[in-house]
């Protein structure tokens, strides 16, 4: 029986971790601007190719 309780606690910890991660993302502003980061990631290439 106790193994179920341990499993339960384990699963709650994992789920809690995800909840925490989600709240953290919201607080950090990851959902405020969905456009810039998606495009920003492409610019690294440009910066290196144009610098000769």
């Amino acid at each position, binding site marked *: *029986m106790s193994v179920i309780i341990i499993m*339960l606690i384990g699963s709650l910890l994992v*789920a809690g971790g995800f909840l925490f991660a989600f*709240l953290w993302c*919201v607080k950090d502003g990851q959902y405020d*601007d969905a*456009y810039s980061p998606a*495009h920003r990631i492409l*610019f690294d290439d*440009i910066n290196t190719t144009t610098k000769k």
Partner: protein
Amino acid sequence: MSVDSNLKLSCYHCGEDCKDTSIQLQDKTFCCDGCKLVFEILNENELCAFYDINKNPGISQKIKVRPDKFAFLDDTSIQQKLIQFSDETQTHVTFYLPQMHCSSCLWLLENIYKINKGVVSSKVNFENKEVFIIFNNNTTSLRKVVETLTQIGYEPHISLHALDTSTVKKSDNKRIYKVGIAGFCFANVMMMSFPEYFVADGVVEANIRATLSYIIVAFSIPVLLYCADEFFILAWKGIKHKFLNIDAPIALAIAITFGRSIYEIFSHTGPGYLDSMCGIVFFMLLGRILQDRTYQSISFDRDYKSFFPIAVNVIKEDKIIPTALYQLKKGDLIQIYNNELVPADGILSKGKAQIDYSFVSGESIPVSKDIGEIIYAGGKQMAGLIELLVVKDVSQSYLTNLWNKDAFQQKEDSNASFIHVISKYFTVIVLGIATIAAAYWLYKGQYTLMWNTITTVLIVACPCALLLSATFTNGNILRILSKNKFYLRHPDVIENITKINQLVFDKTGTLTQQNKTKVSYNGQALSANEQKNIASLLSQSTHPLSKAILEELQINKISEVQNFKVHVGKGIEGWIEDKHYKIGAYDFVYASSELSNTGSAVHIMIDNIWIGQYKIIHNYRYGFNRLMEVLKAQYSIAVVSGDNDAEKNKLKEILGNDADLLFYQKPDDKLNYIQHLQNIQHKNVMMIGDGLNDAGALKTSNVGVAVSENSNNFSPACDAILDASQFSNLDKFIAYAKSGKKIILISFVLSIFYNVVGLFFAVQGTLSPLIAAILMPCSSITIILTTYGMSEWAAWKIGLETKYDKSHV
């Protein structure tokens, strides 16, 4: 006459058509010197990748910014209002850049440190069209940063409004937290309820069962106290105002569900309904988030302050001092530059004024003012530098007074949305059923069963299905409308649109296109040389009609004009190649033409012989005729315009004889007209306008729609913003909003089916948590799918865009 259409050249920087190839650099052609200059700056700083990311990504630089426009940013008191943080070395500031439109902009703005070495870092928030800049105050200044941005085409929008409300737009993160937590609790509670539902008694040990129940209780407490708090708050607000809104029965149901479940769990009589409670709270919050999603880069609450400049140059003892507008006093002498807005009523003391009041009054043609005449705030100077003696404070000027009128302050009355009305009947009926069932069990003497029945009926009676139908439908409608560039301020606007039966249009800028006039020529054929000479003479004049004709002629090279004379309000004359040219109004030119004198016509006379006339016709928006054809069949239509009645006959032809056509209407008149329609004729009015002159009418009307050439541009306070390019689809938008109500009702009727099943068990006192746990998600998901499917289908049927269009971001 014009450049061959096959050889159209577009500007390397902004993509606009180039008139010729005169402005070139490194085999690239530009439309104007401004664009070339930006290219040079970028080229110097090795930022030409800007042009590789997107084709012609720049912003047209045809309108130049005067060099010391931002001198006021050296003023510390203004600086303090703009700056977020500052210490000895660094300053943090956020600018709103409405020009931002593509990934090239994003890239360039984040590489701005290469142009201005004082910038430490810059970060773009594309959806808010904002850039957050950290700069070193020892090597650069706020003014220099703004000037750098302006130089490359991103002039920050700095307005009085921004100064007043220094608070950043409050984000609705709280709702997202709530949904996150509710979803988390719902999923876990659901999972922990499984053993209760699916495992026969005795298999799960009693202590595990108990542990699970206590964890469930622990999870549902934050859902009740934190996530669901808005239902209780809104319900309480409604009751305080003696208005039974939909939140009241929902709050009651949540409270009863929780209370009964707690009782069952702690008295070991059952597992409770906490999983259903968490689930319904989660779905309802989700619906509300979808419905209340805001458009971050669009503001619906602009007042005159957003339109005014932040500072003006005051002349004091021969010195020019940039002064913040709120510090401007009566008796100050101020300078107004070309193309700038007059911020306060004043008397013209120096210079030549051509004031464009189109924004304030709707008149399309600028008025010239002489020294000593009063110029009202809100007018735009069109002809060079002038000086004004301020006679009224900014807050007391004519325009501002108009704004402060009662009608503008008017609070919207508590909207008795049909959702609240239905929910009221729904609740009353269900309460009736609960009473009857309870009375029956009381009569039978089954007290436990009686309590059981009352509570379970109330749990089932929650009109959450109705709330879900409404929020999910509204959310999807708002989403689809915004994809079609029709942005609503609030979901309630959808319902207001369904009620309208009268449409009132403004003319200038709404029905007609701003700054776009059609020029047609009547008379003798002009030789190329004559055209060139006419253009030469016109280019000396600043009058908008001259400019409109010049644009049509598309001639750059000009010949020399001698003895050039301007007759204010009449026309111009001059000698070119030994010929006398006279261009202007009918009576000025003294023409004996049989042509009618309607509209704005410019007559041409060469050596005292009437040659012909240019007729300037306001260009009606694309699809105008079709739109009116559709709308006039369904609604009464009126046009109220501040302009003259030159277009009356044409409008009459299109709109029919029933339409009210009013001209020479002041902003007040427009407002009164709307009120007249509402109060005397009991009409529900949709006002469609654009400028400040419509602001009062927009606000009083039941639905105020502002037409905007560019949704990031500045439109007055309103309920909805319609992108000018979508003007011809207005009938479709109205039809679509109307379909929304049907969708809500259909999905609600569907959900009632689940309620009936629930009630069937509840009145017998046998609503087991398992049945509740199956019914709740089933009905929620049915509603979500029906509303989504039906609203997409309705949009498709009406012919609206439903797919996500990346290009317009």
